[in-house]
């Protein structure tokens, strides 16, 4: 009796996470929880100015201080390579970022010296006694002023503060604008925000002089990249460096960089022959971990009176900071690639001027360039709708490519894999009760209450990505091993930090091999153990990393089938996997368990023809294209023009992330993303003063969303699988952030439309709202 192939048991189920028990008990180990004997503590002396010369660094006060072991300044670090950068565009100016500043500091918080001490408190005390004689200079803060003739320069050796110029042109925008019935324009600022992973950065470096080997525990998203670059920076062979990511308390892009402190700890540990630990303080995290966003631009869109979009131009100044971090430049180009959004826009153009400023670098923050694109586009869509008197939902629907038009080639040069944008919008409108909402809005206004409805429809580029398109390393690796006892171990090159892939990868393998999920162990984040990998960012963990797991699993399965065929005297093609056993399909009474088959494969006394011993296979999955998740978000907000207060009354989201491996984890990702995106819309913004001081660099001064800011998020989904990978999954890490920011701002602006307000820059704080409403007064 032949058995039908087993339906997936685990894939698609809301299985609770296997990583949780230790986290719930306080037994998980983050970097700072690792305690090696003899560990020294590092504290960093930082610039207190946005821009200054360094006349001298006086460490005399430390001479007799108990516990102080060493102090390093730039002069002690000759030969240590600069901070690595990647993802550049042609002709970009690339300033060298030394691990410690030498003659000049270029942002407040820039490291000047490293103090090494026996205790953590002692290191902080000692660092405070290092006397740096700074010569303050006029700082470059504002993007427009930075480009004005005669502006002070962040880098004296360049002619001006231009970091790079980049443009993307698809179609003919000039011609498109000339043909359009209506042209709408808006200046839009997308300010800096902090990623603010709750665990700050941290590193523990331990050099073993006997083994001549360095082990680095780092709170990073990219252990292998870190290994490659640190080895290079401090002049060690890559295979003499081991990077371990212990538990990582969030990243959101901020930990996909290689930072100065990592090289410092590594170098100093080798120099002193003792472990060196550095744990970032929250104020250091504000100052010296990358910021996100940082665009200031003007968008111009041409359309016909019936709402058909013709052309879009986005001209933007990009705030790079003083030096690039790993992907600073690339992030702005991602904005360009996604500037047409989910619409048929035949003519697009994005011109970016990268600007050096006396600030920490901007770089990838959840969404990384794509939220910026969506924000600009979704704002101008609302402005256009108002201009031609069309409903915001209608103008969007009118310009979507139809489901049958996929794969859809955009004017920005991408090929969207699959989509049903109208389907997602319709569902969101239905779930929201859009027509009723509009009626409620009208009624409320009669009572002097200002309700606003905000929509956003988005598409994002995910599953990073084809290696050639990314300038290298777009693949991900996995190894699947059936152990001699029949249990299964999965090694992944991805490096999750809260996403829950120990669970979702186990789900994939449990179904793939037909074994119980509890017999599967998933290992990641140790460069000595897992195959060479890329890391977790760009919503790629499951999409690319999970695909590698599935294919590696298939390879093991095929090999196992050959051993099973030998044992059960059947044909390998007749072997089936279910219930933790292998069966002969045509004779199901003939079966063996995993341990028996693994025993054969590892003892290797007898081998199936053309088969090697062992049951372990590795796969590097190279995605043929990106994936393009999409969705529609609807927000109902109430604004009090007298106080500027905003209350989000409803938040309705329909996201399409393709096939879902674990809907519980998908929902968690979307919730978190919405909160971050809405946080930027309502509250979050980094502020520097004209001297380059970060003036809201603590949680007391920088407002982060708390639980009370939100109503319940009403989630739903449509499912449009992709054929870019064997899972049909598109990625979910960033969707919420991308959809939410414009939806919230659009709702607030809509609420203020009786006051003639058509745009407000983020965050739409009470003060901004109050000013806008008070300035214009209700216009009937």
């Amino acid at each position: 009796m032949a058995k039908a192939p087993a339906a997936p048991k685990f894939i698609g189920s809301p299985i609770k996470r296997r990583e949780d028990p230790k986290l719930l008990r306080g037994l998980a180990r983050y970097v700072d929880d690792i305690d090696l004997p003899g560990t020294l503590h590092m504290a960093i002396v930082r610039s207190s100015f946005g821009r200054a010369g360094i006349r001298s660094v006086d460490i005399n006060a430390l001479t007799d201080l108990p516990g102080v072991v060493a102090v390093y300044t730039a002069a002690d670090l000759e030969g240590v390579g600069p901070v690595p950068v990647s993802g550049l565009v042609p002709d970009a100016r690339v300033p060298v970022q030394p691990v410690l500043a030498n003659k000049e500091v270029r942002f407040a918080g820039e490291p000047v010296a490293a103090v090494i001490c026996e205790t953590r408190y002692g290191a902080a005390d000692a660092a405070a006694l290092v006397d740096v004689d700074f010569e303050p200079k006029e700082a470059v803060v504002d993007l427009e002023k930075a480009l004005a003739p005669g502006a002070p320069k962040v880098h004296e050796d360049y002619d001006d503060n231009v970091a790079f110029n980049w443009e993307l042109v698809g179609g003919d925008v000039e011609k498109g604008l000339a043909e359009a019935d209506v042209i709408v324009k808006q200046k839009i600022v997308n300010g800096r925000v902090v990623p603010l992973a709750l665990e700050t950065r941290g590193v523990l470096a331990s050099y073993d002089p006997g083994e001549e080997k360095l082990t680095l525990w780092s709170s990073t998203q990219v252990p292998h990249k870190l290994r490659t670059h640190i080895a290079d920076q401090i002049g060690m062979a890559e295979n003499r460096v081991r990077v371990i990511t212990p538990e990582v308390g969030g990243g959101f892009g901020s930990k996909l960089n290689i930072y100065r402190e990592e090289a410092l700890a590594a170098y100093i540990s080798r120099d002193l022959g003792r472990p060196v630990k550095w744990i970032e303080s929250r104020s250091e995290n504000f100052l010296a971990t990358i910021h996100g966003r940082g665009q200031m631009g003007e968008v111009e869109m041409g359309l016909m009176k019936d709402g058909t979009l013709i052309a879009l131009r986005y001209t933007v100044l990009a705030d790079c900071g003083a030096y690039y971090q790993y992907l600073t430049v690339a992030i702005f180009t991602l904005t360009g690639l996604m500037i047409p959004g989910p619409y048929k826009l035949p003519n697009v153009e994005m011109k970016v001027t990268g600007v050096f400023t006396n600030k920490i670098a901007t770089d990838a923050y959840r969404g990384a360039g794509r939220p910026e694109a969506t924000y600009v586009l979704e704002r101008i869509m609302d402005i256009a709708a108002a201009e031609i008197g069309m409903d915001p939902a209608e103008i969007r629907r009118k310009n979507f490519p139809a489901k049958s038009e996929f794969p859809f080639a955009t004017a920005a040069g991408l090929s969207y894999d699959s989509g049903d944008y109208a389907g997602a919008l319709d569902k969101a409108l239905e779930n929201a009760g859009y027509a009723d909402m509009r009626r409620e809005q009208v009624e409320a206004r009669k009572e002097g209450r200002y309700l606003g409805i905000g929509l956003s429809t988005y598409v994002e580029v995910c599953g990073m990505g084809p290696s050639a398109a990314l300038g290298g390393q777009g693949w991900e690796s996995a190894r699947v091993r059936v152990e001699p006892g029949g249990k299964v171990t999965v090694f992944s090159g991805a490096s999750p930090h809260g996403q829950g892939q120990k669970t979702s990868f186990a789900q994939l393998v449990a179904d793939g091999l037909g074994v119980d999920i509890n017999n599967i162990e998933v290992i990641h984040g140790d460069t000595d153990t897992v195959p060479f990998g890329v890391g977790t960012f760009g919503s790629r963990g499951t999409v690319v990393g999970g695909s590698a797991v599935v294919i590696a699993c298939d390879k093991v399965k095929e090999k196992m089938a050959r051993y099973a065929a030998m044992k059960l005297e059947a044909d390998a093609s007749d072997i089936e996997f279910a219930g933790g056993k292998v069966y002969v399909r045509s004779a199901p009474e003939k079966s063996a368990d995993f341990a028996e088959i693994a025993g054969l494969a590892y003892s290797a006394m007898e081998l199936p023809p053309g088969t090697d011993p062992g049951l372990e296979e590795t796969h590097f999955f190279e995605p043929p294209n990106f994936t393009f998740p999409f969705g529609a978000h609807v927000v109902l907000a109430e604004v009090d023009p007298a106080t500027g207060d905003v209350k989000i009354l409803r938040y309705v989201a329909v996201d399409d992330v393709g096939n879902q491996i674990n809907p519980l984890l998908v929902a968690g990702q979307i919730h978190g993303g919405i909160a971050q995106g809405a946080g930027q819309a309502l509250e979050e913004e980094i502020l520097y003063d004209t001297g380059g001081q970060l003036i809201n660099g603590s949680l007391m001064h920088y407002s982060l969303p708390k639980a009370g800011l939100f109503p319940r998020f009403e989630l739903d989904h449509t499912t449009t699988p992709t054929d870019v990978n064997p899972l049909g999954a598109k990625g979910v890490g960033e969707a919420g952030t991308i959809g939410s920011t414009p939806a919230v701002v659009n709702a607030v602006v809509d609420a203020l439309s009786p006051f003639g307000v058509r745009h407000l820059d983020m965050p739409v704080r009470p003060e901004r709202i109050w000013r806008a409403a008070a300035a214009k007064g209700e216009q009937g």
Partner: protein
Amino acid sequence: MEVSLSINGEVRSFDVEPRTLLVHLLRDHAKLTGTHVACETSICGACTVLLDGQAVKSCTVLAVQADGCEVTTIEGFAEDGKLHPIQEQFWEKHGLQCGFCTPGMILTAYQLLERNPDPSEAEIRRGIDGNICRCTGYQHIVDAIQAAAVELGKK
């Protein structure tokens, strides 16, 4: 100076600098690293422990102030190795992602439910206002606390 306190039911003594914060006593001296530090301004709540039954931010308490007190950290919250219903429900409802806020969030939830065994959603949201989670958007945390209230109510 000498500080003596009961941690998770065990009386222990430590010789610490007077300026030592309770959170550092717990983490660095008592080697209980489940209590986390995520700010230095008493905002994030990652360091929350129970001090004589009250949820406090242990980054804002000096170790010497806890002399003679009873401290419960997340490590001591599960009884006899069995997860507390609040921990259970955080697990069930996916109330954690990176887990860094989780210990503090759970102990805050404990106090919230002690004071108000049947809180509304709005009361829960207000009750965890002193704890920041950057990963979850709070919804699953709220769900977990609600579900834990139901579970605890059955007892």
